[in-house]
């Protein structure tokens, strides 16, 4: 143990969002409580909302075949699809605000998604190291308590930036339905003029959906792969909140 302490004292291995206390825990082949309950709850609610949003969003762009269940007066199929989309969008938005709040009051890991340490040379070196690990050029990945640097980049661009983009463009479209004299129109309406009209706003919102779909594919694959091949747990961490490490090696 003393050699580890010396290593830490010399300033190495403070990576992957690890705090001093974390590092001491890692080296004992133990687990770290990373994701607090609100973060986990947000993750799964958000995942569910995004699933609903993608499916219903795609159907809004390309509606299901015409259904004749009743007279139009008594049938509301497409209305329900749109309702589900709007409701899930509202839930996602409220959740996202809750998540931002938790970044302030939660533990340090709750903040990782919202920033990139762009001026940290060591972080960039590890981005490259992690990229090499994914290109099969690295035999052994590093240990990470929070997101690894590549994951952090993905989270930042697809979730923090991407979701903000989807919320903003989504509300701009929603404001059209609400009407041109509401608060939503005042806030989001000018964006419609900025992008060149409602039709263009629909298209970029639609493209954003596909970016999220691409993220889902990568995210689920990486989580499962890392769970199997990396040196720490992944999938169970988002359920229990604890990251368990598989070996004792501090590096």
């Amino acid at each position: 143990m003393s050699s580890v302490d010396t290593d830490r004292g010399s300033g190495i291995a403070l990576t992957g969002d690890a705090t001093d206390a974390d590092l001491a825990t890692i080296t004992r082949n133990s687990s770290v409580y990373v994701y607090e309950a609100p973060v986990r709850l947000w993750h799964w609610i958000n995942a569910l909302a995004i699933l609903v949003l993608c499916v219903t969003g795609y159907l809004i762009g390309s509606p299901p075949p015409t259904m004749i269940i009743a007279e139009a007066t008594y049938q509301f199929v497409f209305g329900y699809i749109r309702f589900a989309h709007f409701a899930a969008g509202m839930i996602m938005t409220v959740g996202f605000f809750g998540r931002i709040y938790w970044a302030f009051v939660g533990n340090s890991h709750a903040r990782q998604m919202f920033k990139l340490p762009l001026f940290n040379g060591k972080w960039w070196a590890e981005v490259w190291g992690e990229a090499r690990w994914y290109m099969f050029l690295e035999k052994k990945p590093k240990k990470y308590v929070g997101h690894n640097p590549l994951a952090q980049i993905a989270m930042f661009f697809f979730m923090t930036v991407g979701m903000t983009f989807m919320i903003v463009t989504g509300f701009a479209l929603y404001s059209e339905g609400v009407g041109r004299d509401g608060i939503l129109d005042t806030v989001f309406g000018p964006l419609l003029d900025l992008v060149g009209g409602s039709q263009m706003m629909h298209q970029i919102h639609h493209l954003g959906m596909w970016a999220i779909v691409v993220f889902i594919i990568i995210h689920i694959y990486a989580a499962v792969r890392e769970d199997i091949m990396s040196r720490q747990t992944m999938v169970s961490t988002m359920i229990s909140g604890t990251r368990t490490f598989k070996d004792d090696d501090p590096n």
Partner: protein
Amino acid sequence: MANTETFYDVMRSQGITRRSFMKYCSLTASALGLGPAFVPQIAHAMETKPRTPVIWVHGLECTCCSESFIRSAHPLAKDVILSMISLDYDDTLMAAAGHAAEAAMMETIEKYKGQYILAVEGNPPLNEDGMFCISGGKPFVEKLKLAAKDAKAVISWGACASYGCVQAAKPNPTQATPVHKVITDKPIIKVPGCPPIAEVMTGVITYMLTFDRLPELDRQGRPAMFYGQRIHDKCYRRPHFDAGQFVEEWDDDGARKGYCLYKMGCKGPTTYNACSTIRWNEGVSFPIQSGHGCIGCSEDGFWDQGTFYDRVTDLTQFGVEANADQIGFAAAGVVGAGVAAHAAISALKSAQNKAQKTPTPTNEEA
């Protein structure tokens, strides 16, 4: 034309009864979305105010705005032109031609400095110093600037003057430019549409004359009373949209039954105009009612938004023409295939690693 002549005087002199005049006032009030309380106000304005001089100029355009305008039913274009305004210059409607016509314009500008309304149909092309549109021997852009200099307000008729329309569609070789980008120091009312609805055109003029001010404009400078809602919001086929009953083919049963044209690329959900409420040709019909989707002609850059028959528009920014779904499917497919290949290599690699590690125990067993 005596400039103290009021609208009412002119109408009466044409044999229009007071009763008809009052009917006209109440119809105009309702067309403008005003309550009955405004009827006397409109009547009073018509009885007392001098007619407002209007100069109507034509740039790069097809004259469909004029064609629409002269078909206005409430109020009749005849009433507007002959009674409400003093249309002192309009190349296509005036009797005079050539030098006499140009002289009439100069005379109006001189006589009514700061009082006349400039109505612009079409837009000026700016490329090659404006040589792509010559009117009266001079580039149209010069005429526009000259006429706008002393105007009280400018009305941009139609999609051309408001946004550029087809002549400004990519790649816009003549550099056709909407009026508000050339005239920047005057209040401008955009009345987009290709053409705008006749009643909207005359309604805007009526409002300006009655209340002596511009109608309430939205963020883009369009009269809010006519462009405040999407066609979709007031479409009589909306229940079929909410029900999920769509026309799938032009000749299917849904088309005959008048189902929603959303899947056929109707731009009603993204177009702000009054077609679904005021309709066309004295309220007879409008595109969706006749079985064809809205093409979004009153929206900015509607020629550059892909075909009229796609719901998910083609985007040309990527070099090849593809819509958001095609791009998304391709991206998700490439990423999915990449992930699958990566997973396979990962599995092989880890199997390889295990195989390399296992020899020792295998040897021990042996």
